[in-house]
């Protein structure tokens, strides 16, 4: 029996559970001996001009090696001068940062645009000395009015980039003004939905160490993509071959560690500039100020259809708050627009967006990156529409789903869905949750006027994964003459279980035992070419590359086995159960991998593959959330969360479930408790874990997971991505559940996070209307 699809516990774990992982702060590499500690001096003001920096007091402190500012960066290449954009150019849809006059400096030049923006770098012998000295670096700021909200940004009274003449840095091409699409709709609902700013919050913050040795720079970085990080690091004026990037163990990423941030580039430059190894490990408070955050969109929607529940038209107008810098240009709202209609066959869809600058931490990818926002709003809108039409939300979903016989299906926003069974996922969840019984229980509590009301929330979602399949992923599989295998992957693990998953793929194909397969990732000297991990791409692209490389190794090995057997190649077979080679029909004679590979040149068989996909994949599912709302206090208790998710054939159920669990928790967290807040002057109010309401075990139940497996034709494994399904499905399911619990009291909508205060206020407001 093949190992594929079985519950294999992780090969990564024994080390992590006994001696612990080796994250950047744990590295004891000889090149880092005597490394100085880097501490950033950060802006305490949201928007200001810098008129002077005086480091003299800091420099007198014990242990201070250097205080560096942008003025010291004379050995850096000049920035490319801004090029004026011709009229009528298409929107910059990234995910690269905007350049030209919107470009973000490495250290602040003469202006700061968010609290936490790095202004100077202090290098000291020890960590404690760094914190002491950084406080003594005196920076003169001339405060400017802060643009602390989307509304303030759109008002345009204060501009973050005066030369631009506007705070709107990217506009989508979609038109959202033609109201005729709603002509003839019997039921129309219109309103605003906020998808609030949240922290990505990997448990390990950002960290980077760098050493400049004999004309080569080695950078150890907590990153999702060593190879992309290397490319970004060429900004300091070195060619790629003079840079080695190593991703050691990485303590979570969730999108915020794609590539490498400006602080890490500064640390790498500093190591070269002062000629000493440098290590930077941010504190949590720094992390909550300056690591990119997620979501931060405001939506205006309109949905219309017939009284019997058919949706005829949908409009989504997105304003993306990008913070002080446009790190991903228009990428996130572009994806939100693309996925706007979700799982529904809606005859008319309009979607548009604009990206606006605010004096807040820059926004970038967070688990789902633009797609959770789309699902959150269409799923809220469908519930709105169902409530207005007086219909059951499950029934409205069923009526409007894209049917199984419609795939492949291209949506009105241009998304080419590959395969799906949306109604199947809904049915599974309704049956498992006992939907009719739950509705009955809800009715009886309502009739009894119970203090604790029940809410049932549904979300049916589809998401796009591996949208950049054309970039593909690399794999090299080697089998050595001792019968061991080594896998080099361009994909990059930070908790997902790549090493287990990729070893399973090799084991399934070659029969080499799991404990004789080593998987290596995240070292540009060993793997110069690779993309890394984001957008739920690892198994479908990286895994497919490993799978194909293993097949190539097998084909090559068959030639050597044939020679050794003195048989025709077509008569030679590999028993993938035992990892032994035979002649067909003669099981008595066999050769081991060691014997076969020993016959190859230099005792090694190697295959290099870059797998590319010509289409993205579209995983889907339905989540059902059951909540109890205390109508006297507004407190929400999440009682059950039932999901049916489908990401194609399952390689390892343990890993699949783990990805879903984590995503559900983060999704529920956005619905219930997490939000990054600023005051009207742009001062962060949630910059520690004492203030930011990160979800804990006490707020969550155990989850109930159902799985189906609809393959995609897009790759040889038939698999889609599962990494982001949780955040995409869970947020609207929980959101809808809470509002469902109090809808009979007249509550139509509550914005996230649905804190007790917000829920209580909504109930009070509805009761007085």
């Amino acid at each position, binding site marked *: 029996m093949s190992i594929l699809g079985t519950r294999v*516990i*992780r090969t*990564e*774990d*024994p080390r*992590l*559970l*006994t*001696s*612990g*992982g*080796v*994250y950047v*702060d*744990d590295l*004891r590499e000889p090149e880092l001996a005597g490394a100085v500690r880097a501490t950033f001096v950060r802006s305490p003001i949201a928007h200001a001009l810098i008129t002077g920096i005086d480091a003299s007091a800091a420099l007198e402190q014990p242990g201070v090696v250097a205080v560096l500012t942008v003025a010291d960066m004379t050995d850096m290449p000049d920035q490319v001068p801004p090029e004026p954009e011709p009229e009528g150019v298409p929107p910059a849809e990234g995910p690269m940062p905007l350049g030209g006059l919107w470009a973000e400096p490495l250290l602040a030049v003469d202006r700061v645009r968010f609290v936490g923006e790095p202004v100077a770098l202090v290098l000291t012998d020890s*960590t*404690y000395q760094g914190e002491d000295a950084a406080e003594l670096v005196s920076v003169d700021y001339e405060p400017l009015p802060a643009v602390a909200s989307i509304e303030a940004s759109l008002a345009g009274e204060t501009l973050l980039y005066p030369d631009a003449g506007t705070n709107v840095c990217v506009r989508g091409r979609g038109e959202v003004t033609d109201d005729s699409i709603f002509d003839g709709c019997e039921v129309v609902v219109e309103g605003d939905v906020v998808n609030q700013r949240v922290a990505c*919050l*990997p*448990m*390990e913050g950002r960290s980077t160490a760098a050493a400049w040795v004999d004309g080569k720079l080695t950078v150890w970085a907590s990153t999702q993509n060593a190879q992309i990080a290397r490319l970004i690091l060429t900004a300091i004026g070195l060619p790629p071959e003079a840079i080695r990037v190593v991703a050691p*163990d*990485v*303590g*979570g990423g*969730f999108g915020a560690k794609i590539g490498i941030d400006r602080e890490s580039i500064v640390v790498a430059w500093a190591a070269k500039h002062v000629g000493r190894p440098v290590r930077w490990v941010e*504190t*949590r*408070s720094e992390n909550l100020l300056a690591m990119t955050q997620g979501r931060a969109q405001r939506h205006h929607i309109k949905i219309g259809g017939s009284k019997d529940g058919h949706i005829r038209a949908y409009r989504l107008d997105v304003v993306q708050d990008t913070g002080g810098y446009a790190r991903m240009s228009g990428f996130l709202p572009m994806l939100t627009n693309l996925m706007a209609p979700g799982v529904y066959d809606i005859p008319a869809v309009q979607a548009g967006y604009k990206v606006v600058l605010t004096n807040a931490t820059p926004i970038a990818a967070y688990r789902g990156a633009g797609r959770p926002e789309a699902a959150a709003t269409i799923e809220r809108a469908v519930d709105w529409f169902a409530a207005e039409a007086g219909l059951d939300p499950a029934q409205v979903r069923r009526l409007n789903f894209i049917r199984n016989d419609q795939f492949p299906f291209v949506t009105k926003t241009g998304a080419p869905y590959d395969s799906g069974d949306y109604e199947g996922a809904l049915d599974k969840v309704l049956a498992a949750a006992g939907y009719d019984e739950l509705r009955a229980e809800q009715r009886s509590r309502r009739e009894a006027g119970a203090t604790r009301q029940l809410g049932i929330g549904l979300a049916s979602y589809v998401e796009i994964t591996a949208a950049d399949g054309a970039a593909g992923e690399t794999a090299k599989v080697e089998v050595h003459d001792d019968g061991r295998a080594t896998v080099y992957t361009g994909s990059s693990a*930070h*908790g*997902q*279980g790549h090493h287990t998953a990729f070893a399973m793929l090799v084991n399934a194909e070659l029969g080499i035992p799991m404990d004789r397969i080593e998987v290596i990732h995240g070292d540009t000297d060993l793997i110069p070419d690779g993309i890394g991990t984001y957008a739920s791409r690892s198994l479908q692209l990286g895994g497919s590359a490993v799978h194909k490389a293993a097949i190539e190794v097998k084909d090559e090995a068959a030639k050597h086995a044939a020679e050794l057997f003195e048989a025709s190649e077509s008569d030679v077979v590999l028993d993938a159960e035992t990892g032994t080679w035979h002649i067909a029909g003669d099981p008595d004679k066999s050769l081991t991998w060691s014997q076969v590979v020993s016959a190859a040149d230099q005792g090694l068989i190697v295959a290099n593959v870059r797998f590319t996909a010509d289409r993205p994949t579209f995983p889907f599912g339905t989540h059902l959330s059951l909540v109890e709302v205390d109508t006297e206090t507004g407190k929400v208790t999440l009682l059950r969360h039932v999901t049916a998710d489908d990401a194609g054939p399952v390689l390892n159920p*343990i*890993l699949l*479930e*783990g990805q879903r*669990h*984590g*995503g*559900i*928790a*983060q999704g529920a967290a956005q619905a219930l408790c997490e939000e990054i807040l600023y005051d009207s002057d742009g001062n962060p109010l949630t910059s*520690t*874990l*004492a203030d930011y309401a*990160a979800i*804990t*075990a*006490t707020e*969550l139940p*155990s*989850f109930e997971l159902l799985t189906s497996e609809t393959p995609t034709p897009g790759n040889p494994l038939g698999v889609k991505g599962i990494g982001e399904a*949780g955040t995409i499905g869970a947020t609207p399911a929980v959101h809808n559940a809470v509002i469902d619990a109090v809808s009979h009291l007249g509550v139509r909508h509550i914005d996230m996070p649905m804190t007790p205060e917000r829920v209580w206020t909504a109930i009070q407001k509805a009761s007085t209307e």
Partner: protein
Amino acid sequence: MKVELTVNGKDITAEVEDRTLLVHFLRDTADLTATNIGCDTTSCGACTVLLDGESVKSCTVLAAQADGQSVTTIEGLASDSGEMHPVQRAFHTEHGLQCGYCTPGMVMAIVSLLKENPSPTEEEVRVGLEGNICRCTGYHNIVQAALVAAASSGQEAAQ
């Protein structure tokens, strides 16, 4: 100042700055890097260790306060022959960890929890872990691992 601690059964005497936190003593002086730092407000529990058998967040204890006491980190949890502790084993079999960063603190917190309450309910485990944040697992399999560890410890004790 001079402090003397027993860490995972080994005596360590060192001269440290007065303000040295226990977690920095463990990581930098004792060179035991499994214990991680996840915040600066005693909120996340990544740095949880046992101090004379009680779980503490080692970012909120001075090395000086631990003077003369005994510390256990996850590196000291397995048996002398290298056999994993039931909680470590359960984390492995139940997929109770992903990136591994919160794991040492989570494991130590559960070791302490099970010492106080050897057969907790799911609810008691969840309440007991309120001070430990994990961002990868959604806590589902961590809670499961705690329950499995409790059951297996109970069985071992009964044998």
